[in-house]
């Protein structure tokens, strides 16, 4: 770059002019006349000069008219960029700024103000008003008319124009190359959207491309943590610059936090530098930059900051647009990756539940053992998630059987595995079947180390049913009481004796009870899913009601299968449309008359 006159510079490619002028009407008018003269020197037609002069005056007047008193110390900056095919003017003001209206109409005839925006819009091809904290930039563009209508210049003017045209061509070529590069990158990223891509790798490539195409020197990409409290550093360019996470509610002054909170781009430069304690200074200590927060479907995702070492070369509107476009791609890819992770996790959970359900199913006995004069019926209904309920009916020889019902704390694969271990443990001790109390104590001793290591426990109840002796011996480890109904009674009675659930203490003595089950009597072993069945109003069935239902079932039918159906129907009737929240398991024992 070289200097022509004070305040006027000519770039190597596109011709440009920069004027800083005092914030008053007389000074800005003088400046606009300088611009007009400069544009005339570029061979611009008279009609265009008039249009640009008026558009410039309107823009610059607004910069003066609306500047608050304390901002009048700052200059109004007019930058003109003149290419072969168009002219762009930027006016930087220090007003509070305003939102450029979506539609500008001519004011009513007798209004004394309000024609400035209309004139700017009418005299140019496009107008943008970019708002930033402390300053705003009005950008006006207009295509150049054919210069054939202009007065024919002399040879030296022609040579000068030829040189400018060459510079413009070079400039356009560079612009085209940059656009081509951007487009190639955009197409490449489009192709990757929706595919399974490593987010960090994708972000790294995208950020590198962005830095190169937008002619930046550094970049920082941060993502909002899953708890929404921090901006965590994902990438820093140049690499190897350590940058700790920033806490959103912290005391540090950070443009990244401000941008994320306000969901607005924040610019910084030598006039409005980063705060001394801003962590971003570690990467962008000098120059200028922009911090852009990004979100998807209104959900904040993170921030990206781009920095440039040269303080006098802010990012252009095109480069900022490029930043927005690239980061839109990144946001979509990040959200896609998160959705994919959630889907994978859901799939793993569903598979785990399937395994648990398979294990649980495999534990259930294939057939009901015969032990006359007792008849058995059982049911196990699983809630949506696999629970830890299971029951077992083990033939014990000579019209005898061991009935086991258990509820392992927790759900899923761990509960199903412990149920399987309990089943094997009990089945491995047939010598203790007729002494259920000792059987539970031995099972507790075996399982205690494993259960206590993972802070789990199992409630269980075992009943030794001896057909020949017409006797029933029960022992309970923290489980629901055995309910027994004998004909003539209004309700079933609970048999509450028992000890701790398995896995609580290493040595436990479990009392065993010989339960009388006279002919016609009906007994029930069950899990708490039955008594805790809730209806839609949240009311629990309760043990009292269960005891009454069992008496009703016993009185209504002598068939144990029909009694089971009755119990299940009544429980289902209580639940109504409410979903099953826990497994429901029951074993009915009937002394056939």
């Amino acid at each position, binding site marked *: 770059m070289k200097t022509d006159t004070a305040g006027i510079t000519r770039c190597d490619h596109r011709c440009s002019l920069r004027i800083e002028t005092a914030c008053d*009407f*007389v000074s*800005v*008018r003088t400046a606009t006349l300088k611009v007009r003269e400069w544009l005339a020197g570029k061979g611009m037609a008279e009609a265009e000069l*008039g249009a640009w*002069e*008026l558009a410039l*005056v*309107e823009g610059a*007047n607004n910069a*003066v*008219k609306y500047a608050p008193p304390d901002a009048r110390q700052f200059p109004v900056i007019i930058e003109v960029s003149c290419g072969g095919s168009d002219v762009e003017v930027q006016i930087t003001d220090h007003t509070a700024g305003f939102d450029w209206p979506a539609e500008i109409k*001519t004011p009513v*005839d*007798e*209004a*004394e*103000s*309000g*024609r*400035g925006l*209309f*004139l700017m819009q*009418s005299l140019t091809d496009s107008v943008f008003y970019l708002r930033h904290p402390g300053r705003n930039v009005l950008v006006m563009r207009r295509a150049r008319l054919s210069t054939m209508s202009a007065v024919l210049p002399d040879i030296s003017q022609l040579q000068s124009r030829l040189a400018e045209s060459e510079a413009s061509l070079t400039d356009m070529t560079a612009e085209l190359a940059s656009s081509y590069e951007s487009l190639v990158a955009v197409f490449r990223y489009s192709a990757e959207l929706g595919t399974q891509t490593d987010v960090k790798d994708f972000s790294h490539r995208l950020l590198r491309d962005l830095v190169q195409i937008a002619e930046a020197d550094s970049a920082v990409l941060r993502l909002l943590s899953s708890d929404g409290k921090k901006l965590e550093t994902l990438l820093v360019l140049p690499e190897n610059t350590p940058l700790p996470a920033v806490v959103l509610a912290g005391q540090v002054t950070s443009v990244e936090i401000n941008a994320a909170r306000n969901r607005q781009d924040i610019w910084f430069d030598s006039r409005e530098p980063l705060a001394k304690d801003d962590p971003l200074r570690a990467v962008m200590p000098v120059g200028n930059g922009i911090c852009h927060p990004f979100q998807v479907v209104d959900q904040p995702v993170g921030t990206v900051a781009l920095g440039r070492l040269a303080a006098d070369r802010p990012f252009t509107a095109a480069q900022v647009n490029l930043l927005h476009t690239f980061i839109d791609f990144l946001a979509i890819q990040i959200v896609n990756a998160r959705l994919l992770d959630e889907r994978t996790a859901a799939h793993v959970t569903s598979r785990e539940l399937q395994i648990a359900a398979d294990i649980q199913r495999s534990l259930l006995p294939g057939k009901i053992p015969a032990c006359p004069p007792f008849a058995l019926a059982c049911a196990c209904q699983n809630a949506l998630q696999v629970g830890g309920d299971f029951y077992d009916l083990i033939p014990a020889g000579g019209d005898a059987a061991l009935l086991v019902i258990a509820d392992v704390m927790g759900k899923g694969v761990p509960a199903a595995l412990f149920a399987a271990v309990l089943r094997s443990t009990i089945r491995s001790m047939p010598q203790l079947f007729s002494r259920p109390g000792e059987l539970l104590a031995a099972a507790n001793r075996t399982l205690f180390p494993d259960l206590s290591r993972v802070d789990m426990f199992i409630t269980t109840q075992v009943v030794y049913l001896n057909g020949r002796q017409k006797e029933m011996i029960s022992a309970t480890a923290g489980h629901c009481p055995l309910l027994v109904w004998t004909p003539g009674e209004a309700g079933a009675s609970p048999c509450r004796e028992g000890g701790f659930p398995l896995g609580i203490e290493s040595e436990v003595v479990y009392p065993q009870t010989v339960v009388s089950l006279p002919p016609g009597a009906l007994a029930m072993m069950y899990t708490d899913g039955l008594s805790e069945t809730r209806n839609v109003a949240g009311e629990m069935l309760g043990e009292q009601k269960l005891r009454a239902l069992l008496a009703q079932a016993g009185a209504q039918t002598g068939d144990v299968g029909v009694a089971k159906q009755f119990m299940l129907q009544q429980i289902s009737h209580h639940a109504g449309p409410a979903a099953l929240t826990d497994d429901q398991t029951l074993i009915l024992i009937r002394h056939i008359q």
Partner: protein
Amino acid sequence: MIIKCQDPDVCVVTGLVELAAANATQVRDEIRAALPPACTRLDLDFSTVTFVDSIGLGALIALHKTLRSRLGTLRLLQPAPDVRQVLEMTRLHHLLELIP
């Protein structure tokens, strides 16, 4: 700028070069102050005016309202093509009398 009121009901303003932000308010106020009470026609010689901006247009409308309140007329004499174009663009040629 020269303001001449040879006739009690006609005033003529000459010597204007620009009517823009830097001078529009002053021009408006000086003309208003110089208008005799009986003046019902104000002629602004616009043949010498090379530039008018939106604040200048605001001053013209203010003067137009002043004259209309006296049942009078504001006329712009011989505006240059560039200036006429701005007046037409903003539709003020319907409101103000352009001669010719």
